[in-house]
């Protein structure tokens, strides 16, 4: 008996030891380190579906699963424009935590189209031992050019772990977790109206910490949900709201500690512009491209002159405006070839600071000259989107050629050529420096119905570009206005849960105002009584996008004296038509659907087959004969009475 008791005690101790060995893992606190910028960054950590329980970091809600996918991203603002991107998914071996490991994620951010890219590296230093888990993300920015000039603002570091499940049921619990041995409990906010809809799995939990004290200071719960096929982004801040809509996000102990440093700087482009062998038309000029990459095939032009001459080349630089007008910036000195030969020759040009409009392009004319014979070869950049050409020295590298043929008897001919377009004949400009203009165009979209008669309020207008998507509800005049838009954006519009136009793209290179013509149709419907004898006047016809509840109401109107009602701006879809007796919504006399396919459509009649009585109106004709005279019995009786009285 004593032996058995000792054995049990030993087993219990062993079990407890094992348990403690696992459960004692906690985060090692370290200070947040912010490099270079000398300011404290607000730390936002995204954990999508990330689960930590009392036993430590647990991925996929199952310690036995040896891997997890981790992705990293970064978002920031540069000159008023937001950028956000993510790395590809990177698998982390669970064993990496068992000791220490080091993971590196690499990404590339191309800040502005056509410019050099900003690169970032996100290093994760992972340490796992018996007492703590430490994850150290280090974000390092770099670029092709060392002299970063502008600070990149509002850097938010994202990282998340995927393929992890969340327990719980949105509706009957609250958010509670421990962090640094303190319990945090928050109710979810009440202003989430559609708590009964199916919520998609896209959940983001944004924890915000005081990065000095490491206190949990804020929490943002973000998710997208689908309501009648319409994606509705929702952002909810938890703090300060005692709520009804609840969720079960019990994170248990939260033993993660982060150290990270990030320093983003950016610079004006200092580029090499290559003279390419292909052409484009910019601001009305068709010319060879002057671009940041070189083509693979070369071309040349040649002039000749009788006699033996020195050959000369020089370059002129112009600003070419959107209307085709030009301003000369300057021109180089001549490059000479007095003897035969070919190859790259260089010449510099001191460019003064020159203001630019965002639609301006730079035209470079290479002049080739033999005596009095000359020609010009034109090159032009794309519209730079720049505010100025910087004060800088440009170096022109021109591939030149001179050859003199003939002899004293028949005479000489001088040939001059200018080559460009490939790496061998690599004519180019180095030090091409300019300052980018803030990209901040306005995009004003007016949401209209099909016949462009009505502006549509409260339509959800979605705007997407390569990096982000945005949604706005059109205002009372149908406007959905954005600022800071550039490049190609994609627009679509949802109205009462129906997509009412196909996604279309807009190339925004200037302030833009557009009408968005939507498939919102006007329609007629006639309201009849059940036996279709006569029509119903003042019947309330209301159109819903689903069941007959106020929130689904799209349009309503009363029938006129011909029994018709004219309903405007209905989505081109199958809608519910409900007819009420009178202007109130108390008595339904008809409920069915109709499908709208065109504007001014006359829909099949609504025959009201509910809540009615019947009226029978029999008629008869009463005849009064005028050719005959009848005496009534009453008249005769009166006569008899009179007679009796006389008697």
């Amino acid at each position: 008996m004593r032996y058995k008791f000792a054995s049990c005690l030993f087993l219990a101790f062993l079990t407890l030891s094992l348990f403690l060995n696992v459960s004692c893992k906690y985060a090692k606190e370290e200070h947040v380190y912010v490099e270079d910028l000398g300011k404290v960054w607000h730390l936002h950590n995204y954990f999508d579906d990330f689960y930590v329980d009392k036993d430590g970091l647990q991925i996929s809600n199952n310690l036995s699963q040896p891997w997890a996918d981790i992705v990293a991203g970064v978002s920031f603002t540069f000159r008023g424009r937001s950028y956000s991107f993510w790395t590809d998914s990177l698998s982390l071996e669970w064993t990496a935590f068992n000791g220490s490991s080091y993971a590196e994620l690499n990404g590339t951010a191309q800040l502005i189209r056509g410019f050099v890219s900003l690169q970032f590296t996100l290093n994760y230093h992972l340490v796992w031992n018996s007492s703590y888990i430490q994850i150290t993300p280090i974000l390092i920015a770099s670029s092709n050019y060392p002299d970063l000039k502008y600070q990149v603002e509002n850097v938010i570091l994202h990282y998340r772990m995927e393929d992890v499940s969340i327990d719980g049921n949105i509706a009957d619990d609250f958010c509670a977790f421990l962090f640094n041995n303190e319990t945090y409990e928050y109710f979810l906010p009440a202003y989430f109206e559609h708590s009964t809809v199916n919520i998609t799995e896209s959940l983001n939990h944004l924890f915000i910490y005081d990065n000095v004290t490491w206190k949990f200071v804020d929490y943002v719960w973000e998710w997208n949900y689908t309501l009648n096929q319409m994606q509705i982004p929702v952002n909810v801040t938890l703090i300060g709201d005692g709520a009804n809509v609840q969720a079960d996000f019990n994170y248990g102990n939260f033993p993660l500690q982060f150290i990270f440093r990030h320093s983003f700087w950016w610079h004006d482009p200092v580029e090499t512009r290559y003279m390419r062998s292909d052409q484009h038309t910019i601001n009305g000029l068709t010319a060879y491209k002057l671009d940041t990459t070189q083509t693979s095939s070369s071309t040349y032009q040649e002039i000749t002159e009788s006699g033996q001459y020195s050959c000369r080349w020089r370059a002129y630089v112009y600003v070419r405006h959107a209307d085709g007008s030009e301003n000369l910036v300057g021109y180089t000195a001549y490059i000479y070839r007095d003897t035969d030969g070919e190859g790259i020759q260089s010449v510099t040009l001191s460019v003064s600071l020159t203001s630019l409009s965002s639609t301006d392009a730079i035209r470079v004319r290479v002049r080739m000259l033999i005596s009095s014979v000359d020609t010009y070869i034109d090159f032009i950049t794309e519209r730079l989107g720049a505010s100025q050409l910087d004060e800088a020295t440009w170096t022109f590298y021109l591939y030149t050629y001179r050859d003199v043929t003939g002899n004293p008897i028949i005479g000489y001919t001088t040939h001059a050529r200018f080559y460009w377009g490939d790496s061998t004949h690599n004519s180019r400009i180095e030090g091409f420096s300019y300052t980018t203009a803030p990209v901040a165009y306005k995009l004003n979209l007016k949401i209209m119905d099909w016949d462009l008669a009505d502006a549509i309020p409260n339509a959800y207008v979605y705007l997407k570009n390569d990096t982000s998507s945005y949604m706005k509800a059109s205002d009372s005049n149908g406007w959905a206005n954005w600022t800071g838009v550039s490049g190609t954006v994609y627009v679509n519009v949802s109205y009462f849960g129906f997509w009412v136009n196909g996604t279309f793209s807009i190339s925004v290179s200037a302030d833009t105002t557009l009408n968005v013509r939507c498939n919102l149709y006007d329609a007629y419907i006639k309201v009849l009584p059940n036996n279709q004898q006569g029509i119903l006047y003042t019947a309330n016809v209301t159109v819903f996008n689903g069941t007959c509840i106020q929130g689904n109401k799209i349009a309503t109107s009363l029938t006129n004296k011909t029994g018709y009602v004219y309903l405007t701006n209905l989505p081109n879809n199958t809608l519910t038509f409900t007819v009420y007796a009178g202007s109130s919504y108390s008595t339904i006399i008809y409920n069915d659907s109709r499908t709208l396919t065109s504007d001014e459509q006359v829909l099949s009649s609504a025959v009201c087959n509910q809540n009615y009585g019947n009226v029978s109106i029999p008629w008869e004709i009463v005849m009064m004969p005028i050719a005959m005279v009848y005496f009534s019995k009453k008249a005769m009786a009166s006569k008899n009475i009179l007679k009796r009285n006389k008697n």
Partner: protein
Amino acid sequence: MSLRRGFLSGALSLAAIRAIAMIGIVFASAMLYYDWTVTMTGAKPLVVFYKWADGTNATTIDLTYNIYANLWLIDDNATYGVKNGATVSKTIYMWADSCNATTWFANYTVQILDTSGAVQATWTTTDFSSVGESTAVSWSQPAGTIYTIKVLFKGSSSVVVGSAARVNMKLKTAE
């Protein structure tokens, strides 16, 4: 018709002198009130109901409608019109004689429209408790014309779903 015959065969022979004496009184008035009605059963009246759909005539008709609480029903052109088949113009009287569901109607209106659509007579009530011939309206209808009957009514909140009301309408005209 049997009543008429009986009256003529009996009363005329017995009171011929008194009847002749009263002819002057009778003819002094174009219309007399009669305590009884004389339906033209078996006769061919000159004012009839004309069925628009097939052109047939009828001396009695029955129009049926649905009625909805708090809602107007308008029948711009009832199944039948009123036809004056006589060779002379006729004055025709119209009224609702009775209703068995007096609280069902917030408004009940019958209009007679001439061939151009102009309203020639309107009989209307919001209170079926006081109807009858004394409320009759009249119009003069030229020979050979067919006038349209327009029916309008608004159900009151007292309409009983699934039940039926009956409104007896009458027309009267001189032979």
